[in-house]
Structure formats: structure tokens, C-alpha cells
């Protein structure tokens, strides 16, 4: 497949924070393949980092291998959805099973799991898969917003009107997620598609960032340093740590430098035209 490295720039950083002894977050990204993966592990004494490590490693390998076989934009015959959906779903299911089985067979890994947010960029769009409370944000034309909705108790309470935004900020229940990778043999990751524009900046982060820094401050960093992703990532991690750094903090920043429409063969364009 064609490298996207000339269209997409990525930079990531992960840090244990100021309180925790070790880092249970894991990140993986590859601009050439348009792929970014972030996981926030949990459970056991050190097993959280095992779970997040398995998730990012298996997913990165699995997606890379699948992209060699089929381009992500090609619609699937059965579902009509781009192949990216099947690839993400399948690879997340595989990682889920690998973590679940490891947790079952290794006593020191019992009960481990991980949140996950993965983004796959192709054909001027992005498919975002997420499980748990790791997030993907987008900065576009000065508007900063989260494109993922947490799978968490707080988000459920917000959706049901049982709690206000203000109460959610004060809640003691920030640590309760309703979905995680590796907890059950079955997993339903949430997948969503978004169009991508030149100039967009995307942020994948663990809750160690958005629990420690308010959204306007995150937006301030991205709008001030759009052309220096490494420095922006450093600033975000530093601000989380300056505010207490009570959790591991991880970020992956992605800037879209130019359009990256998929190259379509004459045949597929003809079929696409006929199918209209």
C-alpha cells in the first residue's frame, strides 16, 4: 500500500505520571500506515501493562498485516462498509481473546484488561475504534471536541440525565469503565467513521490527560503549537503532571498536512460509477 507519511504526521508520548510507580499505558503509531493505537491497562499488580502491551502490539501487527492484503477503503461485499471496519473489529477481537486467555492461564495476570482507542486513517477519513474511557479528540478550525463517548459509568449517568457535567467533574467514580478489552471472551468495540480535512489535529489520550487537564487547556496547547507536535505532546504531559499527575498519561498527536484520497483503479471507478 501507499505510504501516508507525506500526508499525516504523528507523534506520541507516554509517562508514568507523578504518583504511580509504573506505566500501565501503551502506545503505538505508524504514520505511513495511518495507524495510531493507545491502551490504558488495568488489573493485577503489574498485569495492567501486560494487557495494554498485548493490545497495542497485536493490534499494530495485525492491522499492518491486514493492510498488505486489502486496502482499507475497499467496501466489503457483505456489509458495504470499508474493509477498515472488518480489520479493526477482527484484530481487536483477536487481541481481546489473547488478553483474556493470558489472564485465565497466568495467575499473576488474573483479571487484567485494558481500555483501547485506535484510529485508522485512509481515503480522507478515519475509522475510530474504542473500548472504555480512552478518548480521541479533534481540533478543526478552532473547534475542539471529543469524537468518542466513554464507555463509563459517568457517561451512562450523563446520558440518562442522572448527573450534571459539574457533578461528573467532582465524581469519585471516574475509574469505573463499562467495557474493557480482555475481560470477557466476547467484546463489542465501538466503531465510528469521520471525514478528515487538511489542517485537522487529532489527539488520542488516556484518562490521565483529560482527568487532569480541562478541555480548554488541551485546546490551548493544540491551537498554540499546531506545527510542533513533539513540543505539544510534551506540554500536555507536563500540564497533567503539574496538575498532580495522579495517573499514567499518554498522548498521540496527529496532524493532517494534505489530502490522502485512496487511489482507485479504472475498473473500480467504473463499477462505482455504474453502481450509482
Amino acid at each position, binding site marked *: 500500500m501507499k505510504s501516508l507519511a507525506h500526508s499525516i504526521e504523528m507523534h506520541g508520548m507516554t509517562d508514568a505520571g*507523578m504518583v504511580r510507580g509504573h506505566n500501565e499505558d501503551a502506545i503505538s503509531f505508524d504514520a505511513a500506515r495511518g495507524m495510531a493505537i493507545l491502551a490504558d491497562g488495568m488489573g493485577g499488580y503489574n498485569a495492567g501493562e501486560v494487557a495494554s502491551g498485548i493490545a497495542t502490539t497485536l493490534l499494530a501487527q495485525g492491522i499492518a498485516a491486514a493492510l498488505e492484503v486489502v486496502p482499507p477503503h475497499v467496501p466489503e461485499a457483505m456489509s458495504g462498509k470499508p474493509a477498515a471496519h472488518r480489520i479493526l473489529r477482527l484484530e481487536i477481537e483477536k487481541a481481546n481473546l489473547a488478553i483474556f486467555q493470558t489472564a485465565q492461564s497466568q495467575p499473576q495476570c488474573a483479571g487484567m484488561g485494558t481500555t483501547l482507542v485506535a484510529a485508522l486513517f485512509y481515503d480522507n477519513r478515519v475509522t475510530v475504534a474504542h473500548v472504555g474511557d480512552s478518548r480521541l479528540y479533534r481540533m478543526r478550525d478552532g473547534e475542539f471536541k471529543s469524537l468518542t463517548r466513554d464507555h463509563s459509568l459517568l457517561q*451512562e449517568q450523563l446520558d440518562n440525565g442522572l448527573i450534571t457535567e459539574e457533578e461528573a467533574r467532582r465524581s469519585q467514580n471516574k475509574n469505573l469503565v463499562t467495557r474493557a478489552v480482555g475481560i470477557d471472551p466476547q467484546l463489542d468495540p465501538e466503531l465510528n467513521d469521520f471525514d478528515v480535512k487538511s489542517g485537522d489535529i487529532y489527539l488520542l489520550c488516556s*484518562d490521565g490527560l483529560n482527568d487532569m487537564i480541562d478541555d480548554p487547556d488541551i485546546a490551548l496547547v493544540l491551537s498554540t503549537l499546531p506545527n510542533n507536535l513533539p513540543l505539544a505532546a510534551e*506540554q500536555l504531559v507536563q500540564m497533567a503532571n503539574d496538575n498532580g499527575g495522579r495517573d499514567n498519561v499518554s498522548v498521540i498527536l496527529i496532524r493532517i498536512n494534505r489530502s490522502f484520497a485512496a487511489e482507485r483503479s479504472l475498473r473500480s471507478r467504473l463499477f462505482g460509477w455504474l453502481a450509482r
Partner: protein
Amino acid sequence: MAKLILSLDGTVLREYTLEKNAVSIGRKPNNDLQIDNLAVSGNHARVDVIGSDVFLEDLDSTNGTLVNGQTVKRQMLQNGDMIEMGKYKLKYVSEGTKPGLPDDFDKTMVIKPGALKPTAPAGTSPLTAHTEQMPIPVARPAPAPAPQAAAAEAAAPAAGEVRPGAIKVLSGGNAGKTLDLVKNLTSLGKPGVQVAIITKRPTGYFITHVEGPSHPLVNGREIGVHAELLADKAVIELAGVKMEFFYK
């Protein structure tokens, strides 16, 4: 475990520990916490315990429920909140979510989706949370990746607000103007020529080079790739303009 302390005219009548997920309060005897007074409705209010959060909901009582003097319908309670029903007062006391833990910022746990109905604290049946072993607090080396300016980094986190600082322009067309550094991040310079940021941190104000072939000068010396702490009255030279940083 959180509790409610019932009092009348300053005399404590009883303490009620919130062990159930839903606690009813009212005049009728079927309530978990009965207050036998005509100013209190039969079924006056309910307290929901959801994980580590506690909510108070008024059940359309005749005389209403106050929290810290304000009429409420439903509200999340905070330690020390004073609830009033008629002449009776209920003080809400939360004794930390899980006493004995090194910090109150619990590690992430999984619960079943839809476990929204008031759930028991972690560990009991409706919550399928795994018991989490807490990390032994380990002194952690200074955060490696953050741009560091010597020992200033080691200062206690979140140590409150830093003193207000500002920039005064000394040369060029804007000479004499001052800029208050109110934001956590302020960008200075000319995009495409030379840009630096000043970050407001608990330990002071730091300047960091962002773009341009040369780095800004601080007191005549070119700064490196890392953030540098700005001393009071430091003179910054950036994109051909001199300016002074000072604490207000």
C-alpha cells in the same frame, strides 16, 4: 463508609451509615431512616449510593429538601453537606471512599454496562469489578520527557497558583505595551520567523523555543532546546524584539 448524622436543634439524634444502595427517608415507618415529624413528608427523599458517589433526591415532598440552604431536587452530595427537612438536619459525612489507600484516585475498574441502578461499593455482587491491588507508592524519578529546567521541576505538584507575571515590550513598534500572562500557555513572536511559548507552571514561568532557525535570547544568552525558567526582570529577545518578563 459514608453516613448521615440526624440532628434537631443541634442535638444529635442518630447516625445512619449508608450501607444500602438506596436509602429512603420520610415520616412513614417503612422508611430506612424515619423522621417522625409532620413537617416531613411520608416519603420525603431518597439517597442513592452509586459506586463512590452519593446522590440525594427529593421525592416531591410537601415542604422540600434543602442542601446547604438551597432547595434541591437531585444533587450529588459532598462531604460536610447539610441537608434540611423541616427542622431536622442531616449532615453528610463521607469518610473517604476506601480508607487506608495511598491516594483517592482509584485505578480503573470494569463494571457491567447498565449497572446503573445504585450499585454496591466495589467488591460486592452487582459490580463485577476485579479487586485491585493498589500499587505500593514508589518514589518516582523526575518525569523524563517533560522539558526540564534544573531542580525547579522537583517542586511539589499542584502547589497552588504561581504569582501573576507579565511581559513588557521594550523595543519595536509595540514598545511600552505590556501583556499579562494569564493563560497557561502564551505564544510570542512571528510565525514563520521565530516563535517561542511561555508556559505558566506551579514552579514559575518557562520559555521554550518553538520554531525558527535561531533560538530566543534570555539576558543575552541563547536558550537551548529545553524550557528555561524565567527570572524576574529577565530580558527576552525574540524575532528582533526585546521584551522584559516581570512578576507583578
